[in-house]
């Protein structure tokens, strides 16, 4: 495949790919009609998609620095938007977002607003300027703007801390899905997942990850939206449910007092929950405060997470970088405005006694013989218990693991199994694409910034790219090893990654462009103080740490509310106490603000 013609033919290549994928789904549906078992279909879905990603990864192999680190800076805006969307939407958002909304109500929706609104910050404050800079990695910007290896090193530490907590959760998710689809133990599934992830990234670096992420986005968005629309049509909620589920929200609010929402369960099952939080009942006051603090942490984290920012280094120009932020958010929005519809309609189907799918308030015996209830209870992800012995299933007798809402919805609505296989492929695509982006962000920072810029600046290209790949494998193996230990609380890790990045990197990045007076000492102080303050507060407030009482409801999901102000104050105070940056640095900042012309750092620096 010739490179130039590949870029020119992107539309055709991905249209063929999408058509091929849809044809594969239809083929699976036909196989299901002919009586092929659910397990075989699950294995075929996972195997087929992973082989495709691996082929793309192999075709994109490269030994050029520019291609390895920034995909040759030739990714068109729309495709970079898709790749960023896949990079962004993790296994957790694919699998757990709708479940979170189902169980968490208003409080959880802070994630939805935060994980979309953050792109306004990326577009306004970061992406165009970092693109103009021409860096390969985020520490590359910090190191050049502020000068000195210490600033660069601090940025590497924050980057690794934030990305590594995140990548473990992703490898965990891909391991879980691989284990379930291929019927292998979780500990083996984790390594199979890692193998797939490395196949996509190792040979071609950023170039390979870009083109596999585009392919993964197409799979994951089809896998998310198709079941919801299909379910809505089968159950009579409207052709496109997104605009018509308002009545369902109001109906749930009417039903909640009737079904006894809020009555505590009298029994408990490990890892399973009953529904206790109202679907839509903001209380104002502290409730509002908790919402906006969570949203703010997620937004600032979005604008500081290196695996997202580095995607904007791959576009051909500053203007294309901005355009691709707009498309990124559009593609992310497609999933994020579907998730609440999914959560609402699934909940209504279970609660509303006038619907055939209702289970709450129905005969206990009838409900426990439903196939989907039996499937999920046999793997311990769902449980029923007639606690009060009246033969009727109450809301506080129905226990479920939050993250099965997405996976169980097709079965609740009685859709064919092929849809469940599709959802598994989508979840795997989401987890793999995010893990790839994160692993590459870590390995590139270590190989480019730590090894090449700090340890051995004379290393030749071949050597640098071999080091990059060795690090990629080593970090991936370490993350898979930690994931296989099944440490508890790994899902909180997603919110932590955002808070770590926001605490340590947000202000040094923003002020590097927007405040000329910011200097080396200030940036170091900002990174160190913000990161340390945030981490210390996390240790204070996390139940596994000191377990202290949160101040003003600032719990371990929003510790950047402590870290960020400390970072800002430290950076401003220390900058003003030390000499202003030299004329050369100030001229560099002026140059970054002009969108046209050559990048600050030359090609292959």
């Amino acid at each position, binding site marked *: 495949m010739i490179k130039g013609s590949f870029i020119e033919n992107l539309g055709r290549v991905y249209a063929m790919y999408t058509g091929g994928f849809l044809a594969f789904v239809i083929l699976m549906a036909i196989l299901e009609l002919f009586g092929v078992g659910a397990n075989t279909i699950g294995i075929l879905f996972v195997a087929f998609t992973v082989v495709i990603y691996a082929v793309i990864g192999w075709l994109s192999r490269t030994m050029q620095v520019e291609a390895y680190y920034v995909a040759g800076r030739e990714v068109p805006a729309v495709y970079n938007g898709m790749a960023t969307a896949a990079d962004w939407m993790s296994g957790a958002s694919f699998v757990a977002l709708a479940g979170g909304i189902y169980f968490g109500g208003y409080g959880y929706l802070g994630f939805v607003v935060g994980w979309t609104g953050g792109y306004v910050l990326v577009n306004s404050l970061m992406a165009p300027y970092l693109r103009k800079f021409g860096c390969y990695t985020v520490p590359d910007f910090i190191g050049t703007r502020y000068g000195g290896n210490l600033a660069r090193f601090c940025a590497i530490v924050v980057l690794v801390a934030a990305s590594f907590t995140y990548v473990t959760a992703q490898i965990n998710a891909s391991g879980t899905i691989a284990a379930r689809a291929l019927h292998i133990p979780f500990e083996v599934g984790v390594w199979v997942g890692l193998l797939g992830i490395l196949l996509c990234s190792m040979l071609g670096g950023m170039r390979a990850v870009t083109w596999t992420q585009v392919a993964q986005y197409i799979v994951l968005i089809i896998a998310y939206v198709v079941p919801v629309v299909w379910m809505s049509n089968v159950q009579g909620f409207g052709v496109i449910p997104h605009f018509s589920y308002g009545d369902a929200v109001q109906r749930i609010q009417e039903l909640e007092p009737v079904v006894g929402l809020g009555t505590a369960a009298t029994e408990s099952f490990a890892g399973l929950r009953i529904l206790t939080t109202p679907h839509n009942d903001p209380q104002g006051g502290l409730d*509002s405060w908790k919402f906006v603090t969570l949203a703010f942490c997620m937004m600032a984290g979005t604008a500081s997470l290196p695996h997202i920012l580095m995607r904007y280094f791959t576009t051909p120009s500053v203007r294309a970088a901005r355009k691709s932020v707009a498309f990124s*958010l559009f593609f992310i929005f497609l999933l994020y405005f579907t998730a609440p519809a999914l959560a609402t309609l699934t909940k209504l189907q279970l609660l509303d006694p006038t619907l055939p799918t209702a289970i709450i308030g129905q005969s206990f015996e009838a409900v426990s013989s439903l196939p989907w209830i039996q499937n999920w209870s046999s793997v311990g992800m769902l449980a029923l218990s007639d606690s009060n012995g009246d033969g009727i299933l109450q809301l506080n007798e129905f226990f479920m693991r939050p993250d099965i809402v997405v996976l169980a919805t097709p079965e609740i609505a009685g859709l064919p199994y092929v849809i469940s296989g599709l959802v598994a492929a989508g979840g795997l695509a989401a987890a793999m694409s995010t893990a790839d982006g994160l692993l590459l962000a870590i390995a590139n920072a270590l190989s480019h910034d730590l090894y090449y810029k700090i340890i051995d600046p004379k290393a030749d290209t071949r050597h640098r790219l071999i080091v990059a790949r060795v690090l990629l494998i080593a970090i991936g193996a370490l993350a898979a090893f930690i994931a296989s230990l099944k440490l508890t609380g790994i899902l909180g890790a997603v919110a932590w990654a955002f808070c770590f990045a926001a605490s340590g990197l947000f202000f040094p990045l923003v002020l590097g462009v927007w405040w000329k007076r910011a200097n080396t000492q200030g940036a170091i102080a900002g990174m160190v103080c913000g990161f340390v303050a945030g981490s210390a507060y996390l240790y204070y407030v996390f139940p596994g740490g000191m377990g202290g009482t949160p101040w003003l409801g600032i719990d371990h999901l929003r510790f950047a509310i402590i870290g960020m102000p400390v970072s800002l104050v430290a950076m401003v105070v220390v900058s003003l106490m030390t000499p202003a940056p030299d004329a050369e640095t100030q001229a560099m900042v002026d140059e970054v603000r002009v969108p*046209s012309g050559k990048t600050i750092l030359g090609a292959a620096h």
Partner: protein
Amino acid sequence: MPEISQDAKQRHWAKTRSLTILVLALWFIFSFIVPWFAKDLNSMTFIGFPLGYYFIVQGSLIVFVLLIFFQNWRQDAIDDEAGVGSESDQQ
């Protein structure tokens, strides 16, 4: 590419800054003010949704998407006017 005067650079940056402030103000309203008052907004309905709920699951999200497209449209105009809209030479 012709060299741009220091003066033109400053005017370009002043306009960029004003646009950014405007965008961030709108962002602030739909990220924080509107969700903060979700309880009060819920007394109204919009296409069948309680209004406060509508904004946090859909309305604010749509505003964010449109806001970025709007910002880029204005920023491109600002860049072109100042003669710094060229996309070549950035490999």
